[in-house]
């Protein structure tokens, strides 16, 4: 076979979403790649300019649909900066609860998809089964499985239902057992190690140059986690370790994510205990009326408040399950943001595809891209 270009996508089992990886191959070897994005570009940044501050939260859930809470948190942090609002402490703990459960949900979803890419079918089912337990928890206090619209500028929408913390502890216990099973299925398999070791290597220097963050960067041995380095919410009060690995390959990324799953459980146990002991308000007081209730009619008072609200620019960054996400929200007065700009970690991780794909086999594309954990929603926005 001579050299040829093949299109992997937009409908291809490898993509896990809607994008196209153009690959130049010679036989089974990859000579060049060119990711083609934008098939899911919904113009979220543009629509946000037309929405109330709290309505943008709705779009955030759909921006990254496996890590909706992380993106809500990101946007809320930036908007609160732009609007000069401070949420109560319990709300911050609730946000961390959401974030960390979301990290578990997202990583399990990643595990399910990634291992299926290697041809191992059962873990997909096991992963979905265990992820459903986490989603059940979400459903019990937000009413939705994936698109929550839970966080608000100035706090969160509602408090936890009674008995939630006990159920959460049960789920955490169950998940801790499952992680062992996951490891047995993957690390215990010689074929898995043969396929994933020294695969898709991206060293730390290249990661930094190409803006790669998150588990991929930590798998290259760089101990960088925004929850530690630029703490937001109540992460300084919580005790956890940053997961790192040395290999910079697919196995290392697997190890990092598995360790993060365990660390999330550790964080969540502390958060759940804190929530048990400290009842309190979950919404900031003295919010502008148009923020507290976006659909309520705005009277003369509200109009004046709206006009005279201080302008500002909010910038926030959170450690999303996929990496480092940033938001830049410009408030020019009024109920709509003037400009919203997001930085998606997967966007940068995919843009470096040429660095970690060229030189491997065609059969290596699914595990490597699986280890990147592509969520197209947040790349295309």
């Amino acid at each position: 076979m001579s050299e040829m270009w093949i299109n992997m996508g937009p409908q291809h089992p490898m993509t896990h979403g809607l994008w196209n990886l153009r690959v130049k191959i010679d036989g089974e070897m990859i000579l060049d790649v060119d990711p083609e994005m934008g098939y899911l570009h919904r113009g979220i940044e543009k629509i946000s300019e037309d929405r109330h501050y709290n309505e943008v939260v709705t779009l955030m859930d759909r921006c990254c649909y496996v890590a909706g809470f992380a993106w809500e948190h990101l946007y809320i942090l930036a908007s609160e900066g732009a609007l000069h609002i401070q949420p109560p402490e319990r709300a911050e703990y609730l946000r961390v609860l959401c974030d960390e459960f979301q990290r578990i949900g997202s990583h399990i979803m990643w595990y399910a998809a990634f291992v299926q890419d290697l041809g191992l079918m059962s873990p997909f089912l096991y992963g979905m089964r265990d992820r459903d337990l986490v989603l059940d928890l979400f459903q019990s206090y937000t009413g939705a499985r994936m698109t929550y619209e839970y966080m608000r500028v100035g706090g969160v929408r509602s408090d936890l239902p009674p008995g939630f913390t006990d159920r959460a502890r049960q789920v955490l216990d169950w998940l801790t057992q499952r992680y062992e099973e996951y490891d047995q299925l993957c690390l215990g398999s010689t074929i898995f190690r043969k396929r994933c070791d020294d695969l898709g290597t991206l060293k730390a220097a290249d990661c930094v140059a190409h803006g790669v963050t998150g588990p991929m960067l930590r798998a290259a041995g760089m101990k960088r986690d925004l929850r530690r380095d630029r703490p937001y919410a109540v992460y300084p009060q919580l005790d956890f370790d940053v997961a790192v690995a040395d290999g910079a390959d697919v196995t290392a990324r697997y190890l990092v994510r598995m360790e993060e799953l365990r660390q999330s459980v550790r964080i969540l146990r502390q958060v759940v205990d804190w929530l048990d002991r400290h009842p309190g308000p979950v919404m900031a007081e003295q919010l502008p009326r148009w923020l507290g209730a976006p659909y309520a009619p705005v009277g003369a008072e509200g109009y004046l408040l709206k006009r005279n609200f201080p302008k500002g620019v909010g910038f926030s960054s959170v450690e999303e399950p996929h990496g480092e996400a940033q938001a830049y929200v410009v408030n020019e007065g009024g109920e709509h943001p003037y400009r919203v700009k997001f930085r998606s970690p997967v966007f940068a991780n995919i843009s470096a595809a040429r660095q970690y794909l060229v030189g491997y086999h065609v059969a290596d594309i699914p595990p490597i891209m699986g280890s990147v954990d592509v969520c197209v929603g947040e790349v295309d926005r």
Partner: protein
Amino acid sequence: MQPADLEAALRPKLGDRLLTVEPFARTAGRVRFRRDGALDLFRTMRDDLAYRHLSMVGAIDWVDHREVFYVLWSDERTEYVLLSADVPADDARIETASGVWPSANWHEREAWEMVDVLFDHHPDLRHLLTPDGYAFHPLLRSFKLHEPEELEVKTRHV
């Protein structure tokens, strides 16, 4: 690093191409610079101040002019810094940062197609999110979204 330190470190290299350094939320500061000093500033930031990680390039349409902003991260100091340059709306172009930080490549492609800021010497300035040949720049303020009713009329004949 405080804004004053930043200014002290950058002023000798850039002179009057550096406009101001102002405090900015949760970062070391926002560096405003003239666009002809872009490449020097980028190199100084990366090589002298160890901001090796370019997180984001974005652009804002302020109707009369456009603003290009860069978010940098330093692992040594674990802090962000923002760079920001104003470009006139009728001649919106600035030097590319992708020679200094390869990660700027895609961000600049996106900024170009969304806000119509041209990045000089960019290696690969193609459409990224919008289809090839898409003639509009959606994130300009002059680009209006459809009203739902309007949309109904336009697509009814299909």
